[in-house]
């Protein structure tokens, strides 16, 4: 399949965005309480597709909301009736603007867990009906380390349409999937097909971008090193200042643990699936009172090992995309980057 690249300028991009917003159900980062959430928008003026990275929440809630209905039940005189919930607000056709690279990669990671064995149909439907359009990342923020985790200008497959800066104020829109190709063709008014140097220019820009990263690591080395570090004393030492607030898991674009709960109202009820966090004391507490991870460092160990070892073993990817959201949100500024590096390097001591 031949994927087309279009070129435009900033003004053209704005009108491209405007056209999309007027024609489709569009979600874009909207400022709310000093941070950006992905919310349905009606006009370009109310949102900011180029929202600053540290202040933007992940796009995960559009596919895996903080709380979703799974099923309904109703007690009648004949017995109990079960029914599927209808009217999932996220299942319709839609376009998401301003998705960060790390977020989109996070969705790919989520795909792995949601599509193995039993396929989560709700999630799959939401994914299928969505067109992801990227934002332009020009500069790494303080906590970004996505280039260390598989992000490359050649591997932007997580998007349907990638928006990339070229030289001299040019902007390239590149279809990355069939869905994106089709979508771009439909909405290509005012865009010109790019010439041959586009790929080259994008690469140059990307190299400049990659050079701006403060945090770099060799993750395959980290994977290897962490494998044997389950009993590392560093795990007991590092999270002493963690307050078990669960924030990291809730903002993480790849964390997918959930809990199931029933809400009842008289004879009816709904079963919900909501976010949960492995940093929660009750996460593994069993009914008999037995808890395999009763203390903070064990939960932290589970978190770090799951992200960089277990998931890799199981699905051959890291459960971390290097977005740095957990570090930014952490009330005490614990950096996962720092933690895994310390664990990995403790081996040499």
């Amino acid at each position: 399949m031949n994927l087309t690249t279009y070129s435009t300028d900033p003004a053209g991009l704005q009108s491209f965005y405007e056209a999309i917003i007027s024609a489709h159900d569009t979600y874009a980062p909207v400022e709310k309480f000093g941070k950006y959430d992905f919310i349905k928008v009606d006009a370009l003026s109310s949102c900011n597709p180029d929202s600053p990275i540290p202040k933007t929440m992940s796009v995960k809630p559009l596919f895996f909301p903080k709380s979703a209905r799974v099923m309904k039940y109703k007690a009648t005189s004949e017995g109990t009736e079960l029914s599927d919930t209808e009217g999932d607000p996220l299942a319709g056709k839609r376009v998401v603007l301003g998705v960060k690279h790390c977020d989109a990669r996070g969705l790919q990671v989520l795909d792995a867990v949601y599509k193995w064995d039993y396929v989560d149909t709700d999630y799959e439907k939401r994914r299928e009906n969505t067109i992801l359009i990227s934002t332009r990342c020009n500069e790494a923020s303080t906590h970004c380390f996505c280039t260390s985790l598989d992000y490359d200008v050649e591997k932007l497959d997580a998007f349907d349409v990638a928006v990339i800066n070229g030289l001299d104020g040019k902007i390239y829109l590149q279809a990355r999937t069939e869905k994106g190709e089709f979508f771009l063709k439909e909405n290509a008014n005012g865009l010109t097909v790019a010439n041959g140097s586009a790929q080259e220019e994008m690469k140059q820009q990307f190299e400049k971008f990659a050079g701006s990263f403060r945090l770099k690591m060799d993750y395959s080395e980290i994977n290897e090193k962490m494998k044997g570090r389950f009993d590392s004393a560093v795990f007991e030492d590092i999270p002493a200042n963690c307050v078990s607030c669960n924030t990291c898991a809730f903002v993480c674009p790849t964390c997918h643990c959930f809990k199931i709960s029933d809400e009842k109202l008289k004879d009816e009820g709904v079963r919900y699936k909501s976010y949960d966090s492995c940093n929660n004391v009750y996460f593994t507490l069993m009914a008999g009172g037995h808890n395999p991870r009763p203390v903070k460092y064990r939960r932290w160990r589970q978190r770090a090992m799951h992200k960089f070892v277990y998931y890799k073993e199981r699905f051959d990817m890291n459960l971390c995309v290097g977005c740095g959201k957990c570090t930014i949100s952490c009330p005490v500024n614990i950096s996962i980057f720092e933690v895994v590096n310390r664990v990995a390097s403790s081996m040499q001591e």
Partner: protein
Amino acid sequence: MDYTKQIQDIAGRLFSENKIDVFIGYRNTGFDENQVPVLINQYKDVDQLLFTDKSVFNLANYLKYEHTRNKRVGLVVKGCDSRALNLMLTEKQVKRENLYVVGIACKGVVDETGEMAQNCIECVMPDAVIFDEMLGTPSGRREYQENADVRELDGKTLTERQEYFEEVFESCIRCNACRHSCPLCYCAKCCIDQETATLFQGANTTSSAFHALMTWSLHLAGRCVDCRNCEKACPSHLPLHLLHKQNEKVIYGNFQEHLAGMIEEDRGAFYKYSLSDPDDFIM
């Protein structure tokens, strides 16, 4: 405001005299200008410690974790932190004899933007109210000011407030970070933890957020010391101080100008009463 040197000296002295097992202070993250709370167990780590106007997090929070339980602890407290500590002592959560408190005459800490934080501008008591050793010159108690945000919202109509708070509760993702980062939420099983109480909703819906945040703020009414740990922890950046400051305003205005944790052995406003409390809202 820089007490780095003094704090390092004090911590070093305490360790060498074997007076403490753990010292809780701040250190640099090493990668940006923010600071991380740090629990120090030995003399050789003392030089990590520092204290500047970026030392924001309320360290009294760490007294509720297993790392400090039944240990002799030294810690640094600002004005608001010391009020929280005072309440924790009154409510018998920590033992005074296990603590060595380094009080700070605080000049205000900064928020994300680098300006002085709102709670510091409105701070009633910048100096530590409880300490074994005081750093800096105390500036004394200040006049109580009503919170600017609360006043602004109060001036709005009910519908506007309603819409505003609907958005607040909708944005809540029920991570309970507010409760975990609050030094006064020391209950091992909190009533707003979804797993422990069947009384609360398990799902992270707007309805449950309303339920939980309201209950939580009312449990802290008359006890909240306005350290804003909750707000710093909130991943959705919700203005949680509004709820607390509103309660504080009502309590200060109606119940003999009560402020939480100012004096020793003073429990929250709800643990005492006066015959002259307002009665006109009751039929």
